[in-house]
């Protein structure tokens, strides 16, 4: 199992990294698998500003499960619920009881949620082990933008200046017609670095399941569930001089999938199909002045195309979206441990679809100001404010205020308490869909209160123990829900209807230790959540559908010489499928295991991987009547050349 070596900064430029690069480094301490990153060099000029309850997805998870989608990896390690329609098919997440549109996704600081639905299909977001993925639940998401009422997820591509050039090819095969071919290259020349990656994946997903809908339940094979996807990406990093840096990120992908029907419906293989094309480009420039002022300029363009076909219903629907972004940020650090940061963001959305009456253009502007002050080594005070304006709709002023206390001089232990107000402006479909779109919708508003602690202790330079615990409470009003129109009940329209409150706790424990050529990492997380509608509602005490109260994960990695062993468990509790709790999906416990062996032939390193997923072949569902695969296998070969 290779070691995560990607989070590095140039010694010259580390101090100029923008916030998305600095903060995660603080949190890298939380995970034993990232302790190995000794080559990280960060200027000590800036204070440790934390993201309160942020989770950094362990590098080892991304390396071991690189073939999986972002949603599948998050489900393994984070307190989220993946609403998954099956392998290769649409999946969205529920974070702290909120809906899919209330989690924002940022790619190198650019929001990439679908502008039409406001949601993100997590099955379309690939994971590369070089990526940095941060889960920012709750109020901390306001740092990156509004709308993340449940939180946000950041995907960042970073340079790795201390790495040598390397080339990698990967081939995987597995059950249900799964195939994956990928390649990567990281090349560095002086102060220029580029990383290239590509991947092709396909699967038939023709697994067997037991159909309990039939008079006599029997095994059936999932039909019409195949998918194939290719992607290409390239990143360029240039440290122009000691004060200026430029980054360019390119990404494009194309995905085709057959959409299988729920097993409660008539099975019509290949009747429904979807094609998705995405392209994004982002360029940024960062400048560090000599008087502790940092400036940043970021520009991006994203393109999304979606085509949905239902042959039987004679539907052939397309949706095209272009978005442009311009982000300007500036920050200033004073010697009295005060840090001021500001950002202005302009976003332009251009949608074209027959489902709107006209082509839609919407401009969104956002302003963010944040002040951070350290009271010696004892406390950190944090205050921020965001305002967003979208054409005629605007969010109210969105404040965030919090404090961290460090009772120990070593800062091994931290307590925090924070409050934030957040808001989500309606998505384009909510406003303009024909029929039903409601241009009079108000933004959703949320209030969050959160507290927690973080603790980390290293023992004998061999053992690392980490603990993170959070408790939160949030109230969301004017929650947008699609309801039947009062005149014509067959037409639905979105209205600001619900008031929802969510509260819960999250606990994360990790332990890592190393003896000579053996290392062990183990991680346990648990989340408890209660989410229900306003208590004024007679049914307000009921848990919202598809929001499990209990989620738990456990993972265990053992590396000894050239062998690696992996074992993981994911427990997902009971999920109600309707609002009166009369129907629910059973809890499930998934267990996966895997083995790696690495050997070298001259400069070529070869890794053989065998994984067994759903070890005990349980029957499970994330969405009612959408069966998931039983036990299945993956076999992989990775060829790594370090010339």
């Amino acid at each position, binding site marked *: 199992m290779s070691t995560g070596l990607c989070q590095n900064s140039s010694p010259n430029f580390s101090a100029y990294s923008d916030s998305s690069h600095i903060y995660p480094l603080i949190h890298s301490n939380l995970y034993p698998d990232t302790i190995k990153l000794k080559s990280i060099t960060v200027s000590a000029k800036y204070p440790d500003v934390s993201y309160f309850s942020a989770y950094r997805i362990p590098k080892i998870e991304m390396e071991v499960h690189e073939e999986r989608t972002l949603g599948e990896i998050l489900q393994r390690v984070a307190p989220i619920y993946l609403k998954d329609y099956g392998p290769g098919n649409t999946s969205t997440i529920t974070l702290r009881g909120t809906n899919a549109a209330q989690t924002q996704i940022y790619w190198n600081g650019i929001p990439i949620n679908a502008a039409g639905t406001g949601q993100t299909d997590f099955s379309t977001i690939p994971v590369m082990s070089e990526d940095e993925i941060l889960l920012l639940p709750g109020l901390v998401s306001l740092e990156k933008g509004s709308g993340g009422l449940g939180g946000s997820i950041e995907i960042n591509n970073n340079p790795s200046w201390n790495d040598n050039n390397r080339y990698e090819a990967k081939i995987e095969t597995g059950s249900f017609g799964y195939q994956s071919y990928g390649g990567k290259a990281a090349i560095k020349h002086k102060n220029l670095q580029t990383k290239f990656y590509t991947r092709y994946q396909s699967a038939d997903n023709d697994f067997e399941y037991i159909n309990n809908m039939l*008079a006599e339940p029997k095994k059936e094979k999932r039909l019409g569930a195949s998918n194939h996807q290719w992607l290409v990406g390239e990143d360029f990093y240039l440290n122009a001089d000691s004060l200026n840096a430029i980054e360019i990120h390119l990404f494009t992908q194309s995905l085709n999938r057959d959409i299988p*029907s729920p097993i*409660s419906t*008539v099975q019509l293989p290949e009747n429904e199909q979807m094609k998705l094309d995405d392209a994004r480009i982002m360029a940024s420039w960062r400048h560090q002045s000599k008087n502790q002022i940092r400036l940043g300029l970021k520009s991006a363009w994203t393109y999304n195309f979606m085509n949905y076909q239902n042959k039987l219903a004679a539907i052939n629907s397309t949706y095209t979206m272009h978005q442009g972004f311009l982000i300007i940020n500036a920050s200033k650090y004073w010697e009295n441990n005060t840090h001021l940061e500001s950002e202005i963001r302009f976003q332009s959305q251009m949608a074209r679809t027959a489902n709107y009456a006209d082509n839609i253009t919407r401009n969104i502007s956002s302003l963010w100001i944040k002040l951070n002050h350290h009271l010696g080594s004892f406390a950190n005070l944090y205050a921020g404010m965001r305002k967003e304006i979208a054409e005629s709709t605007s969010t109210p002023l969105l404040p965030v205020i919090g404090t961290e206390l460090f009772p120990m001089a070593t800062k091994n232990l931290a307590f925090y308490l924070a409050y934030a107000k957040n808001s989500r402006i309606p998505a384009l479909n909510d406003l303009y869909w024909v029929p039903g779109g409601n241009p009079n919708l108000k933004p959703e508003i949320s209030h969050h209160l959160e507290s927690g602690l973080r603790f980390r202790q290293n023992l004998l330079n061999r053992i690392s123990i980490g603990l993170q615990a959070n408790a939160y409470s949030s109230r969301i009003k004017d929650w947008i829900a699609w309801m039947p129109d009062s*005149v014509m009940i067959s037409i639905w329209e979105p209205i600001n209807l619900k008031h929802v409150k969510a509260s819960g706790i999250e606990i994360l424990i990790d332990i890592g230790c190393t003896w000579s050529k053996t290392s062990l990492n183990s991680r346990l997380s648990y989340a408890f959540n209660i989410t229900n509608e306003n208590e004024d509602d007679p049914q307000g005490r009921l848990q919202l559908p598809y929001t499990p109260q*209990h989620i738990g994960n*456990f993972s265990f990695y053992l590396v000894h010489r050239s062998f690696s062993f992996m074992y993981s468990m994911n427990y997902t509790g009971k999920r109600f499928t309707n609002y009166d709790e009369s129907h629910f999906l059973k809890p499930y416990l998934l267990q996966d295991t895997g083995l790696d062996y690495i050997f070298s032939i001259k400069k070529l390193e070869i890794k053989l991987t065998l994984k067994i997923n759903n070890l005990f072949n349980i029957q499970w569902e994330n969405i009612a009547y959408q069966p998931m695969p039983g036990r299945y296998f993956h076999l992989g070969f990775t060829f790594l050349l370090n010339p």
Partner: protein
Amino acid sequence: MLYKKFFYFFCFSLVMFISACSNEPENPENTSENNFSGRRGFFIINEGLFQQGNASIDFYDLDTKEVIHDVFFTANQRPLGDVAQSLNKVGNKIWIVVNNSGKIEIVKSKNFESIMTLTGFASPRYLLFHKNGKAYLSDLYKESLYVIDTLTGQTIKEISTGKSCEYLIEAGSHIFALNWSSLNDSLNNTLTIIDGLADSVVKSVILTKEPNSAAIDKNGHIWILCSGGFFFEETPALYCMNPQGEILKKFEFSGNQTYPTRLCINPSHDTLFYLNKDVYRMGIMENDLPQLPFIQSNNKNFYGLNAGNFILLSDPLDYQQNGNVYVYSRKGQLLSTFQAGMVPSGFQWNE
């Protein structure tokens, strides 16, 4: 020593996770057997939500005021399926058309025990039982009608109609099939008349967009309600026709954005009822559409309507929770309210 600690920690974690997994049943089960023979009441068709497989059938006993939920699941220990569209009681059998599951469940009317499941349909909608041991089945995604042998459940033939058919009603020897759907851009403003003896199309009659429901009165006249189109393209209208398909009367609705549905008739076949947000009532001899509602919705979302000895109305609320059923007297007085299943949409008297 350290190895041991990790081993204990690992075992503790394993036990904790496994113990958290209880073997709960997927849905609440009522395993007691029901018997509906001779009980005065009605079945409620709970349509359920599209693609969520939560359709169900409830029974309401008028004498005991008891609601028996999910009678199909109770009898068969499996869900009914996805979108229960319609239900017909024929003799000692009940035929349930489950639209998005593409099937018809045939059960015993006394206890809902499954007799047979007919499959192979694309999107079945309504059944019409004919005298000669056959039934006609409309299908949203077919430009034809299935003819089914009611004894064997076999599809005998398909009658090509050239358009998707919806509601079916028999008038004399003719079958009136309403062409409600604009599937494949076909006209959705027509009525197809089929000879029930020859099983062939006699003619097609142009009405108003979206003929959605029909009733036959004591004079043998057929009343057809057209909602005017999904986007309010045409003025909604109510037609009165003779069994030969000739239009005798046409009533046009006034006001913007009206969308009348669910036409039905009382047991004496002399008074029509329909939904247009509120419930309206109209005698078959009247010359104008009623201006005032018979039962006001008062912020309820009336969705299903049946005009038997009692007026039955359903309200799916927000479509996210179990809906309500309201029982009114023939004079429009609310007699009782109870909770049904997801999206209650239709009724069948247990006669």
